[in-house]
């Protein structure tokens, strides 16, 4: 109980729970869309999803400042690639929050004559760019880990064993692929934080890809990916060891 209270007292903790619920509703609505007996339930789920989304927009009103502060911190990192990727990601998130705040003001009626569709597109673009930057950083960290693991003597012994176990593989290309995959999996297994962050960013990427029309999937895929990324977000918040730093 104490841990639950501590988790929900952070505003980020509550926001992630609401996000998970929102995408779970979206997924359930998609799965039940053709079920004629459950129309009542689908209507309730739609209402719950709209309410959660509206509430979350209100709670996000102060987050631009958070992102700008995070960008200021990441500008001081020593590694150039990390510095670039993270600062760009944070600045794009700040722009996304500004667009989101404008959309909130429009939905509440404070601002009337703005082009809602254009602002939704802009916010999706900023979100997409920030996710791409985060993924670039993830790939960079994974490559660094792979080079580090490849040099490790203990790992080399494991790889020799692995490669000698399967003698029927084709000679030219596949041993390299096999070795590469083995190296990748070993690196990710030893650093679960990177694996979780990469998976979260990949899942999150489907949401703006669908909204911008670059890769149109359906509402079910979007709901499922959103739910997975929210659950990973909750896990990394509850267990700070699993959070990728910086």
């Amino acid at each position, binding site marked *: 109980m104490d841990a639950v209270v501590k988790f929900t007292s952070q505003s980020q903790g509550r926001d992630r729970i609401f996000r998970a619920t929102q995408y779970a509703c979206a997924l359930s609505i998609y799965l039940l869309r053709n079920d004629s007996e459950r129309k009542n339930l689908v209507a309730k789920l739609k209402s719950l999803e709209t309410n959660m989304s509206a509430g979350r927009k209100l709670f996000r009103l102060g987050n631009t400042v*958070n992102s700008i502060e995070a960008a200021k911190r990441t500008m001081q990192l020593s590694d150039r690639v990390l510095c670039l990727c993270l600062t760009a990601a944070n600045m794009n998130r700040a722009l996304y929050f500004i667009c989101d705040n404008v959309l909130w003001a429009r939905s*509440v009626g404070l601002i009337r004559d703005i082009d809602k569709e254009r602002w939704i597109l802009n916010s999706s673009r900023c979100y997409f760019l920030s996710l791409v930057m985060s993924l670039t950083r993830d790939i960079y960290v994974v490559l660094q880990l792979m080079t580090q693991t490849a040099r490790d003597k203990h790992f080399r012994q494991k790889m020799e064993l692995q490669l000698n176990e399967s003698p029927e593989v084709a000679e030219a290309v596949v041993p390299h692929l096999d070795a590469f995959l083995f190296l990748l999996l070993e690196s990710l297994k030893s650093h679960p934080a990177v694996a979780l962050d990469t998976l979260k960013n990949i899942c999150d990427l489907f949401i703006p890809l669908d909204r911008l029309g670059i890769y149109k999937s359906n509402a079910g895929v979007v709901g499922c990916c959103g739910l997975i990324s929210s659950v990973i977000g909750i896990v990394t918040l509850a267990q700070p060891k699993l959070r990728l730093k910086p």
Partner: protein
Amino acid sequence: MDSWVRFNAQSQAKERVIRAAQYACTLLGYTLQKGGAAAELRKTVSQLEAHMSLSRKLLRLGNSVEALEAAKRAIHLSDSVLRLCLTISHLNRAMYFACDNVLWAGKTGLVSKLDQHKWSQRSFRYYLFALILNLTRDVYELRLLIECEARSRAARSPPSPSPTLPADHSLSPSTPDMLAWLRRQLHLLVTVLYSNPPLLLDLLKNSCDIFIPLDRLGIYPTGQGFVGACGLASSVLSILTMVHPWLKLKP
């Protein structure tokens, strides 16, 4: 900026800011109505207020658990009056949050056919009981501090010889004596409150807050403007105690 980030990270702080904005909208709506503003502006303000109220209900979804944990902690206090007041106040708050959660489910459509008025009245009753108990605790602490202060004053200055009453005034206490006593008590009260800002803030906050359920339950209707002003004042005081934790009354 750094302090804003830390403040924003607490969900209770966010809820207080939204509460302040909600009651500011109530006050604004009342002022616009009195001033005869356009109906569309009034509608926007009342829609904004409803949106903030519903979102606050969403944000408060887990608070019953926190109130129960606080009640569990309050049972171990040494002072029996404090123990009684605080435990029952926290239990009432837990019940208020539970009713509030049911109201949220009704407003979002999860529970159909909910008698919203009945549940709303219920929740305001629990809120009123909790506030009355908080005020009782404030008055009790104030009395203890006043007694303490009076004793320390009596110990510091030697007692002056009481003036002998003239014969024709022996039946009733004279008015100047009573006024002097009243002035002394008032001075004690002001000194104690001035040297204990947490108690003063808590007393003010609870006094402002109590007008809200009194108005909503119809016990002492004061009108939207007064309710909005009281709600805004108590929210601002609450934000102040969060920004400066030393201003919070403990336990």
